[in-house]
């Protein structure tokens, strides 16, 4: 057990002991190698389930809106719980966004900031192992990950090469503004970002379209991207709405495209680049290629970075007189 994990458990135990929280959202060991998974701890006695390692990829903020949502279907409403949440930089930015959008009750949440050093992307590991998940993992040795494949072969994967893209490009690894911080050495912030986006922008219209077609063609409309996204808390998502039905239900490509265009556009000015959608996608769609474009444009056009301040209005809720309008057609 690592040092951070010990500190974390002590802190959470204190929170329960002090009756500060009713539930803590954290990570526990998963059933598969390289997987830690979200867990809900309800008492000090359960705290030892908690882990903190390089596999805590999930964005836990996704659970907050539903925890705080009014339970209209229940006969008796219980008062909203007091929630502790373990937060990497990205989770914390999501919490800020959710606070801004009234999805989290400020008085009822304690954010525990973690010194995140970047998470391992299971998909990258899988890709390095020719598409199959590892059979077992022997842990990290000298900056490399040691894994065994289903055929019994042992492989060493460079940590850097299997670190999630979002983490490599993370601009705020520290959960700034968290209520409590677990001390440690977070990863360094990355300033050189959007390189892939710029590369993509430089391609021809046709090439970009082909890439878009290729990526979206993989989609099976399972909505894992939506369900994993902390911002996708709508009670009824626009794709599921009828009267009017925004999108046909079939997997006809244009329908699928509009689902993704719509969902990603709904993240404009809200996306914190956690890549929860990317990690959730069973078909390995490169959603980051599209979500990040909007993040970049929002920064460039409106000088806005989501998730950093509760007070600042989301960019699409407001405007400035001198906003760019170079896109306007002049006859």
């Amino acid at each position: 057990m690592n040092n951070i994990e010990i500190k974390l458990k002590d802190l959470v135990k204190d929170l329960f002991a002090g009756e500060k929280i009713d539930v803590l959202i954290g990570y526990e060991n998963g059933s598969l190698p390289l997987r830690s998974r979200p867990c809900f701890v309800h008492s000090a006695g359960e705290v030892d389930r908690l882990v903190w390692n390089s596999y805590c990829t999930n964005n836990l903020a996704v659970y907050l809106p539903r925890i705080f949502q009014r339970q209209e279907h229940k006969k008796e409403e219980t008062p909203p719980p007091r929630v502790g949440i373990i937060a990497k930089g990205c989770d914390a930015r999501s919490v800020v966004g959710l606070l801004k959008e009234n999805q989290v009750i400020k008085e009822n949440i304690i954010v525990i900031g973690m010194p995140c050093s970047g998470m391992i992307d299971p998909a990258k590991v899988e890709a390095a192992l020719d598409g199959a998940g590892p059979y077992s993992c022997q842990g990290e040795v000298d900056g490399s990950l040691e894994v065994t494949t289903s055929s019994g072969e042992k492989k060493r994967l460079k940590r850097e090469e299997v670190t999630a893209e979002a983490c490599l490009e993370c601009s705020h690894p520290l959960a700034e503004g968290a209520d409590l911080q677990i001390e440690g050495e977070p990863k360094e912030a990355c300033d050189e970002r959007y390189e892939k986006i710029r590369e993509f922008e430089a391609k021809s219209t046709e090439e970009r379209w082909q890439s878009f077609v290729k990526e979206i063609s993989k989609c099976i409309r399972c909505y894992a991207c939506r369900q994993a996204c902390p911002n996708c808390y709508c009670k009824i998502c626009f794709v599921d709405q009828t009267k009017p039905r925004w999108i046909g239900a079939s997997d006809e490509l244009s329908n699928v495209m509009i689902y993704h265009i719509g969902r990603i556009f709904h993240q404009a000015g809200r996306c914190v680049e956690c890549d929860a959608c990317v990690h959730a996608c069973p078909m390995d769609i490169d959603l980051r290629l599209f979500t990040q474009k909007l993040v970049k444009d929002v920064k460039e056009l409106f000088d806005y970075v989501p998730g950093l301040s509760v007070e600042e209005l989301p960019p699409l809720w407001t405007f400035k007189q001198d906003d760019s309008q170079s896109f306007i057609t002049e006859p």
Partner: protein
Amino acid sequence: MHKKAMVIGGGIAGIQAALDLGEMGVETYLVEKGPSVGGRMAQLDKTFPTNDCAMCILSPKLVEVGSHPYVTIVSNAEVLSLEGSPCNFRVKVLKKPRYVDEDKCTGCGICMSKCPIKIPDPYNKGLSQTKCIRIPFPQAVPAIPIMDKETCRYHLTGKCRVCEKFCEVKAIDFEQKEQVLELEVGSVILACGSQEFNASLKNEYGYKLFPNVVTSIEFERILSASGPTSGHVVRPSDGKEPKRIAILQCVGSRETQAGNEHCSAICCMQAAKDAIITQEHLPEVQTAIFYMDVRAYGKGFDRFVDMAKEQHKTRFICGRIASVESNPHTDTLLIQYITQEGIINREEFDLLVLSVGLEPSESSMDAARRLVVFMDTRGFLETNTFRPVNTTRPGVFSCGSISGPKDIPESVMEASGAASAAAALLGELQSKEIRFEYPQELDIRGIPPRVGVFICRCGINIASTVDVPQVVEYVSRLPGVKHAQELLFACAQDSQKIIKAAIEEKGLNRIVVSACTPRTHEPMFQKTLKESGVNPYLFEFANIREQCSWVHQKEPEKATEKAKDLTRNSIVKVVFAEPLYKETLDVKKEALIIGGGLAGMTAALDLAEQNFQVHLVEKEKELGGNLRHVHTTLKGEESAPILKALDEEVNKNPRIKLYMNARIREISGYIGNFKTVLDPPLSEIEHGVVIIASGGEEYQPKEYLYGEDDRVVTQRELEDMLNGSDKSKLSSLATVVMIQCVGSRDDERTYCSRVCCSNAIKNAIKLKELNPRPAVYVLFRDIRTYGLKESFYRSAREKGIIFIRYDKEEKPDVHKNSNGLAVDVRDKILNKTLAINPDLLVLSAGIIPNPENKLLSQFLKVPLDPDGFFLEAHVKLRPVDFATDGVFVCGLAHYPKDIGETIAQARAAAGRAATVLSKDTIEAEGKVSYIREERCNGCGACVEVCVYNAIELDTEKRIATINEALCKGCGACAATCLASAIDLKGFRNEQILEALEAI
């Protein structure tokens, strides 16, 4: 008699007055001498200082006044006489012949297109041509042509009658005669406006001699997208884009040789606007404005001028043009001018724009004479500072530039003020009840759509391009369509009968009319539906004239296809339409007025006179506010008796409840239903409107040794001295220096305090009158005695008061030396620094906003401008309103202003408030937003984007709720809501998506 009034003059002031009167339930005749209402504003391209498109903001008002149930427009008419007394006037109105029957004409315009005679277009100042029979301009109201008898071929030769031949409704009437109408009204408002100075009288500038010399109003037409050059800025001589433009200010203003003594008040800003707009059209253009003083005295004006200078490369040259020569080969102008330093320069320009001033018009003066109201020596209506909207004849009020040059918002304010005064006079009379009886509305629940489609031929306007029978045939096969037919003129009265009959016979429950633009005729068809028991929102309009037949005249087949598509689209939309009902809400007929200064008291009295209960809150222990420190007006009127009278009237008025030493603790609610907690008495009052009259304060100077040396005082202190007992101190003075713009127009407060120049001049003159001996210096940046105040500037100079201009960068230096106080100032004309040793230094300290504005703005959810004054809904046309309904502003809370302006604005606020209070209920828009609760996440995006504060979050249910009474139906909330939990009735997502699918 019931409440009736007449407004004479259909410019923006008259329109506003008529609309306000109408909204107050006063039946109003709007008499306009021309063929259409709209006035000069209809000719403007943009409006300063926001560069709003003039027609964009005016045309909805034109439509509104044209269709208001309480307003009757009498166009092409003038008033002959006014007899009787207030509440009981008889007016004779001469209605001149149009040669077109207004009742029959549908405004289709075919006569205009067929008329063979071309004449210079007065709308475009003769810069382009129109026809002898013409609709004056596209947005004209009424949209009925007028025939120019002088040039009509039939009238001249007895042959032609082409227009008559083509007119399918037989509306042409060559025999039409003059008609005298006799009308009874209770009060009258004069709003006949002014006219532009005739630039030909200043022949040294070459107007009418050289092709490239134009007046500012002609230039306005050149800039306008709807003007003679479609907005291409070109010079008249060769149609080429000018590279160098000179704009000369004060043509016919501020000079008495050929022009007028007064300042025309609007030209400086108009010039800055034209410079900016021109540069937007032609990025390379270089504009130079030759001025005497930059009179940017209004809200946002100085910032606007700075923008012209800094962002639009406009040169402001303080100096006069001495002569203009035109190169006979190139028509380029060689202009010789003298700068303020006395240097003579010569420079070439491609175009010279003469900023022509405003002066009393012949027709205004005629009207004044016929109504027997007095004019001043210049020909403007005579008014008293304390009664700015009253004329000398009881029951006759005035607004707009008939009483002196002024810009649009001031005209509009006066209009609302005059309307308030006119309505107050009629206070005891009953409103005429206008009630329409409609049959019981059809319940369409569970009934499948049965659509009736009517395709208009519009004479030949549509039918000559679009194959109307083909469209009828096509749409009759579409699902849901149970009836389709063509009509010669869908808007004609007999067509309404046909539509009603079809509704009845075929049980139609939704109607589509394919005809002209819905922007004018939609209400009429909706009325027809109502009369047939069909909800008026089960109606769609397809525009196959303006947006089809007229723009695709050479492609009849494609135009027909388009007409089918447009009609089909409307059918789909109407199939998915739902009946809508306007929410009504009760109005608590009481007003809360915040601030007991001049503005608050004036507004309170106006409302009380109209029988409304008023709650007047004053934070001090006595009423009067700043007026306590203003002893006389510029004209010399004493204010103390007025204040005393006001105070008494307010105190004894049974309908005014005073709360002294009181503060606002809390305000909640919305139009018609506000709740406010005052402290004291810490009780809640209910009211329907709020008027903010919270005033402003004099700036406390930190500069020029103020507070450190007793010889340094503010203008207010000087005024107290001049009107106090210790005048003797003043009589011994030898040298007095006044410094202008103290605390104004600097980096901290960029705005002009508007009144300080007049105040300084007033006090300087008073000093001189008291004792002519002392030398009085006024150190100024620009003297801003706008409008009729200019004469006092002149008289000050005549009295020997010395005016010295200084720059913002070179402010006067004030220090103490052995001689006492010393003021060093750089005189640009003499090009040297003057050292003056005054024994009194008077600082013209600016006006700063009330520091409590911020709190009030939060209470009422209304915005402040960057300077801390309240920001009205629209700087031009809604100068006392806010986007939030039911809240109004007046006086210094809005911006620095003088007594007359404050009173006018206070009365305007009262008038606007009365339009709310005079109704028992307020009717919301029909097409408003609504929440689908099951989808709403309560994120609050809608709350932020709604400028009308119509949406709130229900903290209990954690969803948004819409106050339909406040919703204006813009739909920004619906487009912003990611969950589509808000939708806009009449433009529901479903309707739009279905329409898209049908494209």
